């Protein structure tokens, strides 16, 4: 099939960007969306033009590096699928596809479709951990965890930190990302000791990074490639409130 792409091009964080139009011919339905970009870039290089910069690495939906905003939706049209796992069979011949970078003040553009998500790392450094030095641990089976709690914690821990929740949110809020980590550790006995301190530190850092507030729209959940639930946000709010009261 033949596809028309309108892609955001921006030389660096300082210069203004613009949309450019490209035509990609003979696209196979078995190609992934990123492989179509590979083909386009190969053509651009051969023509002596500059290829489109985009982030990607594992190409199996788990590293969280790919980050395209496709036809107005982070990671494109499918539910629970990252850009790298999106295949061209989801499109049809003659389609025009608009591709933009994540848009959020806390994710400045580096070049074209690549953005800087180091703000997520700083939130994690503020409290997204259990303080346990190597060598201190007791036998693993001495901590009993009900299966339902372990499963719930796992569902929250499945977040890949891609930032689609922020890109989808009209307020550019990072609540889904932060709440997933807070929930994982709040649901497990290992996380209890630091639960109050953790939630306050992480939320403070989130605010400092310039993410917006949550207004319970739920776009984050709808667009999350790992189906992280907004229930995590409810849990985060409860954790935050009880931490503030306890303080």
């Amino acid at each position, binding site marked *: 099939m033949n596809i028309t792409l309108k892609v955001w091009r921006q030389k660096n964080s300082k210069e203004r960007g613009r949309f450019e139009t490209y035509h990609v011919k003979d696209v196979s*339905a*078995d190609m992934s969306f*990123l*492989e*179509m970009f*590979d*083909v386009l870039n*190969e053509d*651009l*290089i*051969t023509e*002596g033009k*500059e*290829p489109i910069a985009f982030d*990607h*690495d*594992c*190409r*199996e939906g*788990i*590293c*969280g*590096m790919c980050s395209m905003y496709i036809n107005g939706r982070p990671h494109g049209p499918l539910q629970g699928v990252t850009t790298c*796992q999106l*295949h061209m069979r989801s499109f049809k011949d003659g389609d025009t596809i608009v591709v933009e970078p994540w848009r959020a003040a806390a994710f400045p553009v*580096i*070049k074209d479709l*690549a953005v*800087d*998500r*180091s703000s997520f*790392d700083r939130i994690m*450094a503020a*409290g*997204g*951990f*259990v*303080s*346990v030095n*190597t*060598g*201190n*641990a007791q*036998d*693993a*089976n001495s901590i*009993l*965890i*009900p*299966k339902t709690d*372990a*499963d719930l*914690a*796992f569902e929250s*821990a*499945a977040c890949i*930190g891609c930032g689609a929740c922020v890109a989808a949110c009209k307020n550019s809020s990072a609540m889904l990302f932060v709440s997933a980590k807070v929930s*994982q550790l709040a649901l*497990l006995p*290992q996380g209890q000791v630091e639960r109050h301190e953790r939630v306050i530190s992480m939320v403070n850092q989130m605010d400092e990074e310039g993410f917006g507030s949550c207004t319970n729209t739920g776009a984050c959940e709808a667009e999350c490639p790992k189906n992280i639930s907004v229930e995590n946000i409810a849990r985060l709010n409860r954790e935050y409130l009880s931490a503030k009261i306890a303080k």
Partner: protein
Amino acid sequence: MTSSKLDAHIPEGHMAEKWSKYRSTVHLVNPANKRHLEVIVVGSGLAGASAAATLAELGYKVKVFCFQDSARRAHSIAAQGGINAAKNYQNDGDSVYRLFYDTVKGGDYRSREANTHRLAEVSGNIIDQCVAQGVPFAREYGGLLSNRSFGGVLVQRTFYAAGQTGQQLLLGAYSALMRQVGTGAIKMYARHEMLDIVNIDGKCRGIIARNLITGELERHFGHAVLLCSGGYGNVYYLSTNAMGSNVTAAWKAHKKGAFFGNPCYTQIHPTCIPVSGDHQSKLTLMSESLRNDGRIWVPKKKEDAEAIRAGKLNPNDIKPDDRDYYLERRYPAYGNLVPRDVASRAAKERCDAGFGVNATGEAVFLDFAYNLRYKYGQMEATKHGIENPTEQQLFDLGKEVVKEKYGNLFDMYKQITGVDPYHNPMMIYPAVHYTMGGLWVDYNLMTTVPGLYALGEANFSDHGANRLGASALMQGLADGYFVIPYTIGDYLSHEIGTKAISTDHEAFVEAENGVKEKLNKLMNVKGTKSVDHFHKKLGKIMWEKCGMARNASGLKEAITEIQELRKQFWADVRIPGEQNEFNPELEKAGRVADFLELGELMCMDALQRNESCGGHFREEYQTEEGEAKRDDENFAFVSAWERTGDNQWTMHKEELKFEYIKIAQRSYK
């Protein structure tokens, strides 16, 4: 005889006591001195993140570098099935010795006993540590940890978190790393790529790194440098590695004096989604844990295979008697759970014989239909008191169980192929997955350059000629959490008098100039072909002539072809954009330039090893039944390659002595 240039520094004493004795007697560094000792960690996967966090906890000053935009993206994250540990929680006869034995046997008796034993010893601590961090492993209803089976073993010792074990372990190590970043003990350099090491007076003292956003070159000093930069499977272009996985850090170290161990040992994983076309950029693994419940088969009759290939026959319509469950047929004891190298070769054998089942003829079936209905479905039906369940009931009940165990893998398969694996058998074919070879290291994990260490997949030491499933995660974390924190003290205790060396030192200037020159050279070729063009060509040569099966004449041809391709690359590669900006094509070019050198060395190593062992299968050396035929008399050694000039090498041997395991023909029958 072991070369005089190689000393593995294996402690004296009985195997079971070596490590505990070593730990009790190794030199220590006073906490006050640790604050003045700086360690550079390159790579933030399981080995790098766990090492960095632990060293920072101990009080060292640590800098961590990774080329991704965050430490959490390292490719360890993609590991699916699980992590081994000799906990014996299942009471099925597991022990440290058994894990040690399975690993050495699985590696086809080409690993170093002392390192492998230590790996088995610390394996249990890893699970404890990860659980303490909040890693949500799968659990039973009583709240205890759950285990599953993996290839090459007869016990259940694999801990897992659905099909995302690597992700959960890496996020655990990443959280420990970020905690230390928060305290200021670690400085993190994401989107930085190491492009050289700096040696001063015979010791590694730092690195040159390129800031990938600005293109600037930076000099960083360290009293010691740890390379935790992963494996080199991407030399084949198509592999299950991430797009960015590369050999560059290890290769630059090799060029500065670190010997490269067993470069030809490559693991071809039997269960990957087959290639669909020329546009293919990477291959996707379907976890080995699927072999637990799936059965691998091809049609018994060639005409059935042909009909399937032509799309005229639905595989579900082939009767059980007309299916060849070739692994169960050839290896009745281990069946579908034979080690990866054995399973891969068996798949190739069937496809080469004309029984392949997809359009290219290079695929076999991995089928869940049986266990889904008659194991899980029946179990659930019994549980729910349903007598005489219908086929549909069995399917529905079984599907729920399979979904919980492997749901994300089934979804991924459907997403990539467009075929629903709950209703149709998956098609799979072997693909490059892991490299057992890597930088040669001694017992301390130090390379032949003093002060330079290699951890995880980047070193060669623990898996011999074939790695068992769920052992890569174990090794990465063992090296980082429990080995290097002790062994580095042995070196750094002698460095407490060494003040931080200024990066204005001439060795830093010289190294930076060398990197600059190389980058200029790449940018100035201004040829006509893209980096990928050359990478794909290299991959094809490697896969066809140094892949699942190798022979002397093919390897000789490959060496000539790679040399020629390397010349073309340096004459005709085109890198758009500028050097001093975010330029992914330039990054790729540097990595492919290194692969073009490594590929030749891999072929040389495969050519000198006139035997078959593990993942290294030389067609000239096989038994009548087509199994790998080792030559223990002449090849029970590690080949450690020293670079002596531009694309010139000398091979040194480290003799492998098996004192605690009786070396034997590997049998899974």
